[in-house]
């Protein structure tokens, strides 16, 4: 015990952590999140400076490259679109404390599901565009939902850890897609399918440039609208529906939910399917709105970034919109700076500070002077 006494003599202050018993004021959670992002940028800046970069110039460049004009902002939105859908997918699963980290695989399989409509083909190239796109969206979602169904069933029926199963199924999904793009649908031996017919392309703003000149060259596509509608729907489900109430109750206290007669097994499966379906829709939107073919490397880890997006948004569907735009800009501008290193680093630090900042909401931290013990 003597050593503790010695130590306290050297440090006359000590940090006291008291659990908060009262409700935190409304303004506090968003402010703490903002503070966490700022802290992350400061830490990132220090690292940038340490490796010889100029943090101010870097951040200014990121801002310019992603928000500096209509064109680049439109590109930011294109990057934000898959993040938005995947972020929603994660937030709905996380709300029920189902740790779906398989959004990446569900995204891939969603892209595959949408592709089969065009590549098998299930519908002829001459199908009217709205019907083609609708069928592709449905197939994409269904494929993603199927990819969520498997771990969902395993979790619900056999209590298999969903973290492991969803993670492992990511690799299966990637390999599955590679099999088709390298072999079955390979175009000239390259790892990509043929380009989809125009009827399978999600409309872009630039298509309407003849009517609205300002849209010229803007690549933002209909997938963004999917994402915005999905955010509203997820919000409605979560906070205004009986089902959402069940999900929130299970997430907060599964035993209480059981006591209230809520079927946990069924909800586990359904939520995993909805989560997978949203991620699958993101995959469809990406191939139909951006690359217009099934190919490798359609995701720079959208499925994993979606996890960060969901947490940063505190699982709130509308906050997911804002956060996905922020992360879209990091992905876009990141490429301007460095293909991989720094932007990923900043993302990682942001996740770290966000999770750490939760302590501030749950505890009151005080620094008190140590009383000398008699």
């Amino acid at each position, binding site marked *: *015990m*003597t*050593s*503790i006494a*010695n130590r306290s003599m050297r440090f006359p202050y000590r940090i006291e952590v008291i659990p908060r*018993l*009262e*409700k935190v004021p409304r303004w506090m959670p968003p402010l703490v999140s903002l503070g966490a992002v700022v802290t992350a940028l400061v830490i990132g800046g220090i690292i940038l400076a340490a490796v010889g970069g100029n943090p101010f110039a870097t951040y200014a460049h990121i801002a310019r490259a992603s928000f500096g004009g209509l064109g680049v902002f439109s590109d930011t939105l294109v990057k934000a679109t898959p993040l938005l859908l995947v972020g929603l997918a994660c937030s709905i699963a996380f709300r029920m404390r189902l740790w779906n980290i398989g959004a990446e695989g569900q995204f891939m399989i969603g892209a595959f599901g949408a592709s089969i409509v065009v590549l098998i083909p299930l519908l002829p190239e001459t199908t009217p565009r709205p019907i083609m796109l609708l069928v592709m969206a449905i197939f994409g979602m269904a494929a993603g939902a199927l990819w969520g169904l498997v771990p969902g069933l395993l979790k619900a029926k056999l209590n298999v850890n969903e973290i492991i199963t969803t993670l492992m199924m990511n690799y299966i999904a990637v390999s599955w897609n590679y099999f088709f793009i390298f072999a079955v649908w390979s175009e000239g031996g390259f790892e990509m399918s043929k380009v989809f017919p125009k009827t399978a392309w999600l409309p872009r703003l630039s298509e309407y440039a003849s009517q609205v000149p300002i849209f010229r060259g803007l690549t933002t596509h209909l997938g963004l609208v999917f994402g915005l509608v999905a955010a509203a729907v997820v919000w*409605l489900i979560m*906070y*205004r*529906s*009986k*089902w*959402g*109430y069940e999900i*929130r*109750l299970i997430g*907060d*206290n599964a*035993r*209480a*939910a*059981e*006591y*209230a*007669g*809520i*079927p946990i097994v069924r909800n586990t499966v359904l939520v995993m399917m909805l989560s997978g379906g949203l991620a699958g829709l993101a995959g469809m939107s990406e191939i139909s709105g951006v690359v217009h073919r099934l190919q490798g490397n359609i995701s720079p880890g959208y499925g994993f970034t979606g996890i960060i997006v969901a947490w940063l948004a505190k699982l709130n569907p509308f906050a997911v919109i804002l956060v996905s735009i922020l992360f879209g800009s990091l992905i876009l501008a990141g490429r301007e700076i460095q293909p991989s290193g720094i932007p990923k680093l900043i993302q990682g630090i942001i996740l770290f500070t966000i999770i750490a900042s939760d302590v501030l909401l749950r505890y009151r931290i005080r620094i008190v002077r140590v009383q000398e013990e008699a």
Partner: protein
Amino acid sequence: MCPGTISGTLDVSRIVFGETGMSQSVGKEYAIEMQGVVKQFPGVLAVDHVDLQLRQGEIHALLGENGAGKSTLMNLLAGLYRPEHGTISIKGDPAHLRSPRDAIKRGIGMVHQHFMLVPSQTVTENILLGLDEPRFLMRLSEYDQRVAKLSERFGLIVDPKAKIWQLSVGEQQRVEILKMLYRGADVLIMDEPTAVLAPQEIEELFRTLRSMTREGKSIIFISHKLREVMQVADRVTVLRKGQVTAAGLDVASTSTDELARLMVGRQVLFRIEKTPHQPGKVVLNIENIHADNDKGLEALSGLSLQVREGEIVGLAGIAGNGQTELAEAITGLRCITAGRIVVQDEDMENGCTLTAIRQGIAHIPEDRAAVGSAPNLNLTDNLIMKNYRHEPVARGWTINQTAANTWASGIKQEYDIIAPSIETPARLLSGGNLQRLILAREITAQPQLLVAAQPTRGLDVGAIEGVHRLLLAQRDAGAAILLISEELDELFALSDRVAVIYEGHIVGELEQEDRETVGLMMTGQWQQEPREPREPARSTAA
């Protein structure tokens, strides 16, 4: 861990290989002496001027009902709490125990009811955990041998190399005891050690305890089971409501009857006016059900019980005799393995809470926080738990938030739930307020059958009275109520009949207050006595 205390914390060699130098004489010197010890918790005098003398080499039972202060008293001795008044002496020297580490240094070790072991590590690793030695190299085989020697010496047979998860509950308990012995404990406090054990394991434990006293150890054995106390202890101290009702009674010179009386006590009741009851038709009919507890041991073994309309049936019994499992079986939270439960002439679907709710069964769960509420959701969300499926709270597939909030505000006012607003998360409510919330939710559903498990546990006097009035009002409105409680006062004040549960079945029913009989039934003595016709109790065995 403080690096300054490496030496002197314990001297392993002395314990393991050392002389049995402890004096074998009994009576001269007390291993532990507690005098006038007081411990106050907010609103409760948990331990009220308690004296306790533990002789060297004896097994001393500490007997009392739940909440009598047994555990608090022992936590004082184990250094977890500090007493407000009174002194604790160890072998005649006054001791000021500031922490469990302090207590173990002075040779006092406590084996808690819930084990603190690392499942993936071996017995030896668990025993060494937290010690300053070995320092860097584990040299496990050497320590395995020491542990083996120690376990042999005390008859605590367990393989030092076995991983904890491979061991039975009884063996895990031996590891906990070994942990304390290895740390040099001369006084062992066993907190309800038999609660988790199967009957054969209990026998083994008792043999071990006796062999330890032969080696000079002194043991405090906390229990509320009379039979076990009579079987294993040398002397017994009885606590009731924080006070000693019998100090250091010689077990040989007492009887279970006397101990039961000392433990349960006799006192004038505070009674609420109760109208004469007119029971109607049978609402709940339980026929010979069996069910397992969470550990897979049989908790209900052939239990039968009926509850009628407009009647409160009290269920008396010592905790852990199947009450929790019974409440869960009736409300669909637990599957039964045999028998049937009939509610309103309809067979209950096994293990389905939703059917139970639809059949009008309300449940006030024993564990308000862990089962009865969602801590981070707000009052409205907690109040609509049972009626969110129907109008007016539901509207089609949606929840009508306005209607839900209006309804919740009404309930909050009517039942006097004190909280800043209906947006307040449930975890911020006090125990009494949370219980009112749960009662309000369950009662407004106008249940046919209400299963109330420990509805007043931990509440203050005013709150208890409120809960009692609500229950009686429900009875008068025609509900059938099964009241599960450990408070005999409460049971006799409210119930029209009291059934007694022991080891998973009903041993008898009483219509009038007879504490002596209840005490005997609760402790399993009733069966062993000759079945003389003894009014007003009647057996339901037929």
